[in-house]
C-alpha cells in the first residue's frame, strides 16, 4: 500500500509540469487586460474573461481606451508594468516587440497560436482581420465607389476621417499614394494627392457621429475599417460599405499582446489562448464581422462573405510596410495637421 502511495506521489510530481495551467488555482489574483470598449469588451467578457475566471478563480479587469493610450502606458510602465494583456493595432505590434514592451508570439506558451494562419503573428498574436474600405452615402454615390471616385472635385471637403495618427489615416495615405502612381514610401506625393480631397468635413470621435451625418448625405464618404461599419449598416439605410478593387482594401489586423514582465504571465497566456480559440474567433466573425485569424474556424457562406477570413483574401489586400510607417509617425502627424487639416 505504502509502495502504491509512493508511486502515485512520484507520478503526480513528475506529471505536474505537464498539467494544463488551468488546473492551478489563481484565486485572489487579477489579470489586467487593456482593450477597446463596446462590442469588443462585451465579446471578450463573454468568451474569454468569463471562462477564464470560471476555470482559474482569478479576476479579469478591463482597462478600456484607445490603443495609443495603452502603448503609452506600456512605455511609461516599462520597468514595472501593471497591464498583462493589451490589444494593439498591427502598426504598433512589431514596434512594441522591437522596443521590448511585449513578449514575442510563442505557440509553446499559447497553443492556439499554432492555429493562426502562417505569418500573421507579427510582433504579437493576430487577433482579427479587417480591411479599410469606403463607407459612403448612397445619396451621393448611387453605386458603390472606387477609391478614385472620391477625387471627384464636387466632393471636395465632404469626407470624414478618424483622428490621426491611426490605421485609417495611414491606410488612406497609402491609397492616395497609389492613386498618384507611387506608394507610401513617397509621402510628398501621398500627402499632395490626399490634400486634393480638401480638409475633412468631420474628424469623428465616435462611429454614430459620422454615420448619422453620412446617412443624411451631409458627409459623402469616409475610409473606414470594415467590421464595425458592416455591423452598423442595418441601422442606416442610406449608407453603403465597399471593399474597392483598385487598389484593394488596406489590410488592418488587430493584435493581442502579452506585456513583457507583466505581473501575471501565465494568466495572460491563458487569456490569449482563449482569445485566439475557435469559440471567440467565431463570435468575433458572427457578431462584429471581424475576420478570424484561427484557421480552424468554420463560417457559413453568408458569414464568410462579410469578413476577410482566408490567406488568399489577405493576399488580395493592400498591405503596408507598417514598420516603415510607424517610423514616420511624428513627421506624418505634422504633415497631416498642416497639409490635410490645416489647408
Amino acid at each position, binding site marked *: 500500500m505504502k509502495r502504491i502511495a509512493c508511486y502515485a506521489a512520484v507520478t503526480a510530481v513528475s506529471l505536474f509540469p505537464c498539467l494544463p495551467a488551468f488546473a492551478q488555482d489563481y484565486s485572489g489574483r487579477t489579470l489586467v487586460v487593456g482593450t477597446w470598449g463596446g462590442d469588443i469588451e462585451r465579446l471578450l467578457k463573454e468568451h474569454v474573461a468569463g471562462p477564464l475566471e470560471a476555470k482559474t478563480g482569478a479576476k479579469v479587469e478591463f482597462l478600456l481606451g*484607445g490603443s*495609443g*493610450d495603452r*502603448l*503609452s502606458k506600456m*512605455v511609461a510602465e516599462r520597468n514595472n508594468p501593471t497591464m498583462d494583456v493589451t490589444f494593439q493595432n498591427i502598426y504598433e505590434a512589431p*514596434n512594441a516587440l522591437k*522596443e521590448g*514592451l511585449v513578449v514575442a508570439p510563442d505557440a509553446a506558451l499559447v497553443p492556439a497560436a499554432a492555429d493562426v494562419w502562417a505569418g500573421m503573428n507579427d510582433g504579437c498574436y493576430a487577433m482579427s482581420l479587417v480591411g479599410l474600405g469606403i463607407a459612403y452615402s448612397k445619396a451621393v454615390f448611387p453605386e458603390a465607389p472606387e477609391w478614385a471616385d472620391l477625387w471627384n472635385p464636387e466632393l471636395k471637403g465632404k469626407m470624414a*476621417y478618424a*483622428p*490621426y*495618427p*491611426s490605421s485609417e489615416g495611414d491606410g488612406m495615405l497609402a491609397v492616395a499614394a497609389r492613386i498618384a502612381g507611387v506608394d507610401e514610401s513617397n509621402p510628398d506625393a501621398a500627402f499632395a494627392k490626399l490634400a486634393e480631397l480638401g*480638409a*475633412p*468635413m*468631420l*474628424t*469623428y*470621435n465616435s462611429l454614430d*457621429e459620422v454615420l*448619422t*451625418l453620412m446617412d*443624411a448625405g*451631409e458627409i459623402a464618404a469616409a475610409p473606414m475599417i470594415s467590421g464595425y461599419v458592416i455591423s452598423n449598416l442595418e441601422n442606416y439605410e442610406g449608407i453603403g460599405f465597399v471593399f474597392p478593387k483598385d487598389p484593394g482594401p488596406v489590410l488592418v489586423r488587430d493584435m493581442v499582446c502579452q506585456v513583457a514582465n507583466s505581473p501575471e504571465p501565465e494568466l495572460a497566456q491563458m487569456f490569449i489562448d482563449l482569445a485566439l480559440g475557435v469559440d471567440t474567433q467565431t463570435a468575433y466573425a458572427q457578431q462584429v464581422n471581424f475576420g478570424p485569424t484561427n484557421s480552424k474556424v468554420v463560417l457559413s457562406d453568408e458569414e464568410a462573405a462579410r469578413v476577410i477570413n482566408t490567406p488568399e483574401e489577405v493576399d488580395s489586400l493592400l498591405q503596408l510596410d507598417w514598420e516603415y510607417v*510607424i*517610423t*514616420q*509617425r*511624428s513627421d506624418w*502627424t*505634422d504633415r497631416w*495637421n*498642416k497639409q490635410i*487639416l*490645416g489647408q
Partner: protein
Amino acid sequence: MNQTPDISPTTTALLVAPAAVLMFGVFVLPFLFLVVLSFWSQVPGSLSLDTSFTLANYVRIFTDSYYLGGLWTTLWLSGFVTLVCLLLALPLARWIVLHAGRAKGLLIGISILPLICGALLPTLGLVNLLSPLGFINGALKSMGLIQSSLPLLGNITGVTIGLVQAFLPLMVLPLINTIERIPHDYEMAAMSLGASPLVVWRRVLLPLMLPGIVAGSLLVFCAALTAFVTPQILGQGKVITFASLAYQQAAMVLDWPFASALGIVMLMFLALAGVLGALISRRLARAS
C-alpha cells in the same frame, strides 16, 4: 471679538506636512520631471528617449508657423471666451443678487451645475444641439428660416459656445461675491445726483465690481487656455488648441518630450496670466 488660539510652529508644521508632502509628490515632482523631459528628445522612429539636453522642442514650437498658429488660436480664443463670459455674467450675477430673493441659492446652484457635471457630458449634449442634424438646425429648418444647416460644430463658434457654457460659473461666482458687497445706496445716490443708468454702471458699479471681474476673468481665461475635452469634441479636429496638440503628441505620436515642451509653454502663459492678475489686483487694492 474672535481670538486666534496660539498654535506652536511644530504643530503648524505637523498640520501642514501631509498636504505639503502630497503636493510635493503629486504636483511638484511630476512638474519638475515635465520640465526636464521637455529638454530631452525622442529618438527618431523609436519609442526611446534621448536624454541629452536640447532646446529643439522649444525651437520647434516658436519657429513652426503651425504651432505658433495653435498658440495664437488658443490665446485669443481664451480671451474671447473670457469676454463673452463677462458680458453674460455681469447682468446675471447682478440680477441674482438684487432680484432672486429666496431663489438665490437655487439659482446659484443651477449656475454652477456645469462645473459639477464635468466637461464631457454637457459637451456631448451640445453636440446633439449644434450638429447639422441637431436641435438648433432642425428647429431653424422646420421654421423655414434656413435651407441648409448652419455650421455650428468644427469651428470657433461651436468651441466658444461650449467653453462659455462650461466656464460661465467661474465668472458668475466671483461677481456675485463682489456685487453682494456693494451697498445699493451708492447706486441710488448716483441716480439722485442725475447720473443715467449707463453712467451709474460705468462710473459707480463697474469700478466697484473690478476685483470680481479680475478674479473671474483670470479663472475663465486659465480654464479656457487649458481646456481639452470641449475643443477636442466640438472643434472636430479643425480648431487646433495647445491642449489638443499636447494630447496628440503625448498619447498618439508618443513624443513625450515635445508634448512636455507644449505643456510647459502653456504653463508659462498660465503663470503670466496669474502675474498680470495679481498686479492688477494689487493696483486696485492700492487705489481703493
